[in-house]
């Protein structure tokens, strides 16, 4: 089992470890990359950040106890790195119309509405944006989000409610009540 090889051995110990680590990266790369992409709305920045997260994971593997712990750790570190990255880079504040389409994304449903929603999420403040991403990308409950972001469950719930209300209002204003 790849995880056992990784979790039982210190990093940099041979080919078996490298292969297992590669499999671990491939298994989680979509999750880490997507959190960063949805948060930053910048494909190359998201790729760079995701690579940094996996480098940090490589160094921290001896401290991780299970596959679940690895997943939790990756979400937590990615979330914190997203906020740090945004603050360090001081990316220009974006308006709804200026937000770049996060890569060549594919999705079902109304593509116009999907694009508008992504733009709206990208314009939310940092914490609510992360909460929305963890809720709707990772399908986490408020308790899990609170644990990941180290914040009270009540705060997470109120952010979710406010963000949903705000998005609904913006969508209504942009494309009218017809769609919703």
């Amino acid at each position, binding site marked *: 089992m790849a995880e056992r090889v990784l979790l039982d051995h210190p990093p940099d110990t041979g080919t078996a470890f490298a292969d297992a680590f*590669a499999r671990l990266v491939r298994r989680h*790369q979509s999750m880490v990359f997507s959190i960063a992409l949805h948060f930053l709305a910048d494909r190359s920045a998201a790729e760079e950040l995701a690579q940094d997260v*996996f*480098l940090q994971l490589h160094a921290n593997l001896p401290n991780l106890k299970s596959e679940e712990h690895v997943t939790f750790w990756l979400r937590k570190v990615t979330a914190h790195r997203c906020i740090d990255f945004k603050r360090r880079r001081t990316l220009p504040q974006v308006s709804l119309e200026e937000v770049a389409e*996060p890569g060549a*994304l594919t999705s*079902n449903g109304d593509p116009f509405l*999907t694009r508008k929603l992504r733009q709206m999420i990208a314009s939310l403040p940092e914490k609510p944006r992360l909460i929305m991403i963890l809720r*709707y*990308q990772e399908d986490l409950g408020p308790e899990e989000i609170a644990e990941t972001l180290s914040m009270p469950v009540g705060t997470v719930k109120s952010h979710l409610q406010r963000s949903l209300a705000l998005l609904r209002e913006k969508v209504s204003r942009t494309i009218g009540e017809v769609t919703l």
Partner: protein
Amino acid sequence: MTDKNLNQIEDQLKRALSRQEAPRDFADQVLARVAEQHASRTAPRNPWWRIFTQPLVRWAAITATAASLVIGGIHYRNVRIERAKGEAAKQQLMLALRIAGSKLQLARARVNEINATQTNQSRREEE
């Protein structure tokens, strides 16, 4: 917000925020960076003294050390000679002062003696 509307927007959000595929070579790039980091961590570092393994630097260092020792030795010898000369001059001056002092004492004693003789003579003449 009705339940239907809420469900609709939540469904739309799930679609909009669905997971995206990372670039095809993402894992390879991560592994390359890990290998790069590992190589830079384990690469033997050249200690400062390894510079002396180069012949030119070694000979330059030997020459500089030898020149410093010779110049230092000569300087120390000169300082000692100067100090000895100073001591000798001081001794000679002290001797000269002692001789001059004793000569002065002799001269004063002689003057006193002459004065005493003249005084006795003049008293006798008065008597």
